[in-house]
């Protein structure tokens, strides 16, 4: 069936709740309201208030409570309403969620899923547009996943819920309702830690994730009209990431541009670039390039576009690589 990313995520949650009675959904406004973006719509009616519940307004509480629930064998899927409000929970994520397995030598784990919308492009208020995935990618023991389309969202969320390690699942709010796509109806899982070659090409590898994938594809189409062939790689799992797919592509094309919406400074692009430099230097025809958000606070709606990482900027990057 064709559906939006919101519908696909909702279906993944509903199906996993049906399959596994340990799955519980909690967060602010996830019950009666169905979530502010409607991702949890209808779940409370189908699975009841003991498995789908609104919490008090307390992000540290939501994640800390989930750790305790996971300790007794539940599988919490916690929603943080916006990524900009996740920071009170950072202590719980860093100090407990991510390291519990290691510090107890596997006796205790916290394989919860933390879902949260993120990213610019929806003309939102302050704190609603940031992309701070790099904070989470820096934490050992955490898996960070970002879907780039409705079908991807269903498959990756399903895998995240089934994961035995904790997952931070970042949902690009710009893509929530941007397009409808055919999504498999039944059980559908996309393995974590595997990148996907979305488009094959031979001149330049463009690596991105989430809302950057449609932008990369648009830039690739335009590049093609001037005779350039771009290979697009959707990273999907940001950490631990699939080095093999990236390296294979770069070795083929000899050029790499990494595209992310987050600021450049200490962003994930730096890590990917370092891996390419370490493991594929001799295949490179040009330096690895990053096209990213600027190192500023995302502007308010009237000048939000100044921040936008779109096809124009990606295409400029591709041309720069070719002209090197």
């Amino acid at each position, binding site marked *: 069936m064709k559906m939006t990313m919101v519908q696909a995520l909702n279906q993944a949650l509903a199906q996993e709740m049906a399959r596994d009675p340990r799955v519980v959904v909690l967060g*602010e*406004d996830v*019950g*009666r*309201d*169905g979530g*502010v973006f409607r991702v949890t719509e209808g779940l409370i009616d189908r699975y009841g208030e003991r498995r789908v519940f*609104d*919490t*008090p*307004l*307390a*992000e*540290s*509480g939501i994640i800390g409570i989930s750790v305790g629930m996971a300790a007794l064998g539940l599988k919490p899927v916690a929603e943080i309403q916006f990524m*900009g*409000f996740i*920071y*009170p929970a950072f202590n719980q994520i860093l100090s407990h969620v991510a390291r519990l397995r290691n510090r107890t030598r596997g006796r205790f784990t916290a394989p919860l899923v933390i879902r949260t919308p993120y990213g610019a492009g929806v*003309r*939102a*208020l*302050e*704190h609603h547009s940031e992309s701070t995935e790099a904070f989470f990618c820096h934490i050992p023991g955490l898996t960070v996943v970002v879907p780039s389309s409705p079908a991807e969202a269903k498959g990756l969320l399903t895998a995240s819920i089934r994961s035995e390690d904790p997952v931070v699942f970042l949902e690009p709010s710009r893509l929530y309702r941007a397009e409808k796509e055919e999504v498999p109806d039944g059980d559908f899982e996309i393995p974590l830690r595997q990148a996907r070659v979305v488009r094959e090409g031979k001149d330049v590898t463009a690596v991105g994730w989430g809302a950057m994938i449609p932008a990369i594809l648009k830039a690739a189409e335009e590049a093609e009209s001037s005779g350039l062939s771009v290979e697009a790689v959707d990273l999907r799992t940001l950490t631990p990431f699939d080095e093999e797919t990236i390296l294979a592509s770069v070795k083929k094309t000899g050029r790499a541009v990494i595209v992310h919406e987050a600021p*450049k*400074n200490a962003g994930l692009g730096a890590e990917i670039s370092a891996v390419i430099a370490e493991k594929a230097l001799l295949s490179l025809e040009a330096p690895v390039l990053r096209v990213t958000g*600027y*190192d*500023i*606070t995302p*502007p*308010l*709606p*009237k*000048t*939000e576009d*100044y*921040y936008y990482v779109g096809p*124009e*900027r990606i295409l*400029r990057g591709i041309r720069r690589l070719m002209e090197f």
Partner: protein
Amino acid sequence: MPLIDRFAPTKGERLEILGADGHLVRPELEPSLPPESLKRLYALMVATRLGDQKALNLQRQGRLGTFASSRGHEACQVGTAFGLRPAEDWVFPYFRDFGLYLTLGYPLDDFYHYWMGHEAGLRTPEGLNLFSFAIPVGSQILHAAGAGMAADILGKKIAVVTTFGDGATSEGDFHEGLNFAGVFRTPNVFVCYNNQWAISTPRRRQTASPTIAQKAAAYGFPGLAVDGNDVLAVFSAVSEALDRARSGGGPTLIEAETYRMGDHTTADDARKYRPEGEVKDWESRDPILRFQAYIRDKGLWDETFETDVKEKAASDIEKAVAEAESRPAATPEDVFAHTFKEMTPRLRDELAELRETHEEAGR
């Protein structure tokens, strides 16, 4: 006897001066405000209602961004701000505080400018100690407690006020802020506008405590519940707490019980989760109509006054909106310039790249 000793929140007692119909129910507690002040209180509440409605209308027309309406909170916001000395005292508000902004003299055009999506509108004018409101829920409560400690350290005889909703009392920052205030006996007035709803979550799902006011006891300072739709009650409670703060008497928590008459923001639809009857019930306790009945009893209100108040407010609002809309958008440089005191080489490079991209695109 101070109000905090007369009304014990643990016994379900709360301060009410005006009844639901706007007539005095506790004449002995009526504050002695001169007629001009009463008329000004009324005018501020009316301006808050009209200015708020204007923002909602602009939002629907696509001329203003997502907006958090203050409808129903007029008595809380105006009553809290009315007794403040904004050049000396400090205020740490939250995102639903239009009436407080208006009462403290924040430029109306700047207010609209911000909500239209421009950072420049959030720059508080010099001389006004109004901290830019916080959006992450409850985070400003700590800033207020810190400002209270600073006032003590610097020997300033001032009060520091912060406002927040019922949802904020569930955040860790609420606990930490009130705890610091109790330990350091800061000159703080914590005002909770308990509007019964945090988006779709009702007050009873935020705390099992019968009142929010009684939480103060655990931090070692007084708490007082007031009828938040009674501007005289809010003003009296806050005034007493301000005096106590300024004279070294320590912090106070005030719970002003009101109701969020509108949606959480323009991105929300409250019909999905709350009963229509509840909204209707609260409509009958409208803070403006109650206060109108009170000043009418005093012979201070008639149709001419009503018309004057509304016309003046509408004209101020129209002027402010026109001014806000006439301002140019930020330049690319503005967007980069305030990241640090001075631009870094990296930021200069990025700004240059943004300009080149714009030039190539013929912008």
